[in-house]
């Protein structure tokens, strides 16, 4: 068992599923869906196995390292640490739920499932690869299925949204690729662990020269900033999330928005520490811009999907706020550092749960209302559909950071950490908390309360199938709200070790 390449299997199984579906052209949709779900669930199962065997005190585990292109010093290098484990588990939870949410998709379910599994495997590759060469391949490959998922199954503006999403992201990635090409020419390696050592020791900066290092840093930063997205590189997001079909929206917000943050943690911090510290004051403002303007822009939306999309900008910006507060720390405050980083990681996981649950709920509203999903298209849904109202309400309150549910712990730790380094940023960030409560309660009030109106008349409550789709996320919101130690047991040791590894 020790030689069993667990991580390779984690990435490969969804891809094998996709391959299998590709080779079954004339199968009944039910079988297709079942197979897709099974292959998608493999991530959760293998992730759980990894979790049980995971040693929080150790660094990278289940490492696979093989020479791949020896002449170019490129290795096939996979490894799992605390942050990867967190994101693998998140993917394992969100992906099957997203497939279940797309269960009744009638138009070409085979192609949908195929592309989806392809996307899932690529995202997992990003979280597990430790060599820039195939990390970047996974990074770019994920765009292909995402593009088609949005374009082929999306709303009326899907083509434009998909184009903008892919072109924008590839545009950013191109700079990152160019940056790494420069890094490769001076270092001769693309291995993250080796590069981290070089970055920490300042060797890279020495070889690239100050200007070169800055240019390379900015290129990599741009690639990541577009992906997260960091304000003001976020304008592709509302359209892409809103036009995508429900399942794809869930995966985009639940998992893909974490890829960028992951890149900051895995690449920018270890390899470009000095440059990041220098840029942090500006970046902190940008993250605050995302927190505040994202929330206020959400308030102005009447399309529910766009509203939650902006809310994602706001929530992911909290993670970045924490990262930049730590990066830009002018004085030593280890307690604030650990709180901010731990909070950022929890926030990634919690946002994945709550935002994907909300997109699922909006998907239900949309289907029941025959494609309408405006804030004013509903009224009094709670009267007709109390179960739906209850579960959606829990997801809403989780998203607005109600204590007792998961969202609060991450946000509290982030604010605690940010306050330790930049109290004014924490104070301004509170505006985002306020605005979030405001628009989420407006959502809840307009859709669920008041007399039955619009599509809220004769609204059918959730089916058992839909409850089963939503319930795991809702249950976890409670569990992680009351017992965050479940995640902190491996997140906190990782944070401590990671902070110690930074110069």
């Amino acid at each position, binding site marked *: 068992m020790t030689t069993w390449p667990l991580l390779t299997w984690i990435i490969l199984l969804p891809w094998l599923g996709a391959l299998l579906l590709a080779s079954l052209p004339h199968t009944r949709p039910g079988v297709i869906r079942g197979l897709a779900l099974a292959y998608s669930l493999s991530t959760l199962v293998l992730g759980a196995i990894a979790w049980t065997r995971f040693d929080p005190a150790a660094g990278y585990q289940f490492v696979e390292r093989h020479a791949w292109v020896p002449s170019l010093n490129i290795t096939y290098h996979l490894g799992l640490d605390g942050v990867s484990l967190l994101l693998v588990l998140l993917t394992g939870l969100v992906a099957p739920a997203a497939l279940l949410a797309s269960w009744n998709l009638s138009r070409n379910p085979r192609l949908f499932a195929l592309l989806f599994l392809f996307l899932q495997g690529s995202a997992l590759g990003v979280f597990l690869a430790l060599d820039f060469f195939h990390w970047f391949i996974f990074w770019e490959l994920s765009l292909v299925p995402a593009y088609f998922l949005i374009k082929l199954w999306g709303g009326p503006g899907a083509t434009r949204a998909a184009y903008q999403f892919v072109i924008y992201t590839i545009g950013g990635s191109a700079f990152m690729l160019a940056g790494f090409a420069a890094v490769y020419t001076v270092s001769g390696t693309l291995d993250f662990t080796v590069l981290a050592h070089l970055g920490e020791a300042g060797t890279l900066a020495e070889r690239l020269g100050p200007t070169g290092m800055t240019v390379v840093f900015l290129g990599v930063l741009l690639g990541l900033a577009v992906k997260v997205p960091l304000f003001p590189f976020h304008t592709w997001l509302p359209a892409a999330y809103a036009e995508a079909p429900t399942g794809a929206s869930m995966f985009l917000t639940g998992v893909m928005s974490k890829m960028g943050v992951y890149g900051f943690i895995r690449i920018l911090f270890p390899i470009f520490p000095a440059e990041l510290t220098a840029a942090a004051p500006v970046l902190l403002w940008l993250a605050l811009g995302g927190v505040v303007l994202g929330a206020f822009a959400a308030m*102005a939306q009447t399309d529910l999907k766009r509203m939650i999309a902006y809310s994602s900008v706001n929530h992911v910006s909290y993670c970045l706020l924490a990262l930049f507060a730590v990066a830009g720390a002018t004085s030593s405050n280890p307690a604030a550092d650990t709180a901010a980083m731990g909070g950022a990681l929890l926030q990634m996981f919690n946002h994945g749960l709550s935002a994907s649950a909300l997109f699922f709920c909006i998907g239900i509203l949309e289907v029941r209302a025959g494609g309408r999903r405006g804030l004013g298209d509903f009224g009094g849904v709670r009267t007709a559909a109390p179960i739906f109202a209850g579960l959606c309400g829990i997801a809403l309150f989780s998203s607005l950071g109600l204590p007792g549910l998961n969202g609060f712990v991450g946000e509290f730790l982030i604010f605690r950490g940010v306050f330790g380094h930049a109290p004014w940023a924490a104070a301004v960030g509170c505006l985002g908390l306020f605005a979030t409560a405001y628009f989420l309660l407006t959502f809840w009030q307009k859709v669920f309360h008041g007399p039955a109106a619009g599509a809220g008349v004769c609204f059918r409550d959730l089916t058992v199938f839909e409850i089963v789709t939503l319930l795991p996320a809702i249950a976890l919101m409670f569990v992680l709200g009351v017992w965050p130690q479940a995640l902190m047991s491996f997140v906190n040791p990782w944070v401590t070790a990671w902070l110690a590894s930074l110069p």
Partner: protein
Amino acid sequence: MRLPVEYLWLIPALPLAAAGVGSLTPRGGRALAADVAIAAMAGAFVLACLALTSALADPAAHQVANFAWFDLGGGALRLGWLLDPLTAFMAVMVTFVGLLIFIFSLGYMKEDPNFTRFFCFLSLFAAAMLGLIVANSLLLLFVCWELVGLASYLLIGFWFHKPSAAAAAKKAFITTRIGDLGLLLGMLWLYDASGSLLFYDGGAGVLEAPVLSTLAGQTLAGGLALSTAIGLLIFCGAIGKSGQFPLHVWLPDAMEGPTPVSALIHAATMVAAGVFLIARVYPLMSADLPLDVPMHALTVVAFVGAITALMGALIAVAQNDIKRVLAYSTVSQLGYMMLALGVGSWTAAIFHLLTHAFFKALLFLGAGSVIHAAHHEQDIRNLGGLAPRMKVTFATFAIGMMALAGVPFLFSGFWSKEAILHAAHGWDVSQVPFYVGLAAVVLTAFYMTRLVAETFLGRPRSDAAAHAHESPAVMTVPLGLLAAGAVVLGFLGTPACPWLQSRLAGTPLHSDLGHLFEGGGLMLLSIVLVGAGLGLGWWLYGRRLRAASTDRDPLAVAAPRTLGVLAGKFYLDELYAATVGRLNAALAWCADRLDRHVIGGAVEFLGKFGLFSGALNRELDEDAINAGFDRVNAGLRGSGIRYSRAQTGEPQGYLRVLAVAFVVLALLLIVGGVR
């Protein structure tokens, strides 16, 4: 029997379990949901009494049981339970009043289709409120603080199909959240400065001397002590939750909720949580400061309390909805409690909190009994003449009214209000709160007389009032018990034997009957003022009772403009809508436009620019470079076409050409070829 502090969590856990059961009970399981909720509350009451006996065994001690919530850095984030007399008295009050209100709800909510949900939410509220009380950590307190806000939100909007209820629920949540963000910032600051959020932790807690002295010793820019800044931020939370000026606007709207909810949450317990919070962190608020520090957090508390006490009482004078009169009265009384905290007597504040909880819950339930009997008629102009029809309700309501008005000696409100006025009189910073408090005494007696006269006396002024009859025992028995409390409780803290205050403060009890009329002049003054208020109310409303709903209010006749301002609640709602509301909407609009047009426009421009350069490139390729090749090609092709025309594929044609050529050649040879 005593309850060890390690098991203190059972007190909130019982209602929480009931809420869990209630949430899973289908609509039909009415009896189950109600029975479980009431049984859990009764159990919590018993436990709270046991906790009180353990706390009173050593009133000066703070018993704690701390535990790790999750790992953080090298240590852990710790929470804990705290048992001291403050906790214990609060827990007993909340469980007892809560239990009575639960029982009352059995009758009041009998007809409601969402009966099970109601008890589920009530239990959730009780759990959160009790958790708030037993918390030994500002973080745990904050968690429960937000959860009581959630329960309040759910219960204000219980009749969610009414748009006004849905809007009131949202307003309550958002308004209190503004204050809560201050509390959050204060908590973050406290955590960052002290490294802990536990109140008591064997010397390392934030309310213990070592931490307090470092906090008070640091001064910020502007000369403010760190402890003052943190204290003021924490006070923001109390302003929001306890309906203090300027965030009180949500509380009257919260009356959209069912009346038992108004009694429990928006009168007796949750709104008093702000007072409790300040009493809990009183060591921080009152930390000894260096002499040159300009401002003390408690000074702000005192003035905010005074403003609120006066403003609430003034607005209450001009309200016509029975619940809104009581709501503004609650605002005013909470102002009194804050005033007491501010002037340095936190024990008097808690004393008033406890007595107020009984008589205000009594008044609200009495109002509920009236509303229930009068088929949801809440306008006092349309009531009247209920006294003979609802004798128990009238009698108990009158007791509550006298307790609130501060009728001397027999009623609890008198003693607790007296304690506050006494403390305010002795405050060495300013006498303004004291005089404001005196003014509010007159107003309170006045508007309560008006309320009772309009509601219960005279002739019924609507069919609903004419046909009202007494509520069932399940509603009147709780009224009776609360009325008993509204009388007896005052004797726990008379100046002669201030047992309650001494237990709370953990100081030895000095009882001396000679002190009963201590500060006799002050007491006499306030008795005269109460009398004046009652007399004035009687003069205006009792002497000539209203005959018809449409009669103008005597005050409207005397001073229409003043009454208009008061009835309009000083137009604060309008002011906020015009300022904060507009600003909010404008910010949202700006953020959206910035995105769509400025940033989105820039991206669009970049995209267009890319397309444009692509097009330019294509033009260049096509017209400049390829065009040359094309022209050559075209020439070649043209000549090819022309040549190909000759190749028709017809043998006759070829032969014809051949023949013609032969003839021509032959002629040429013949003509010119003779050489």
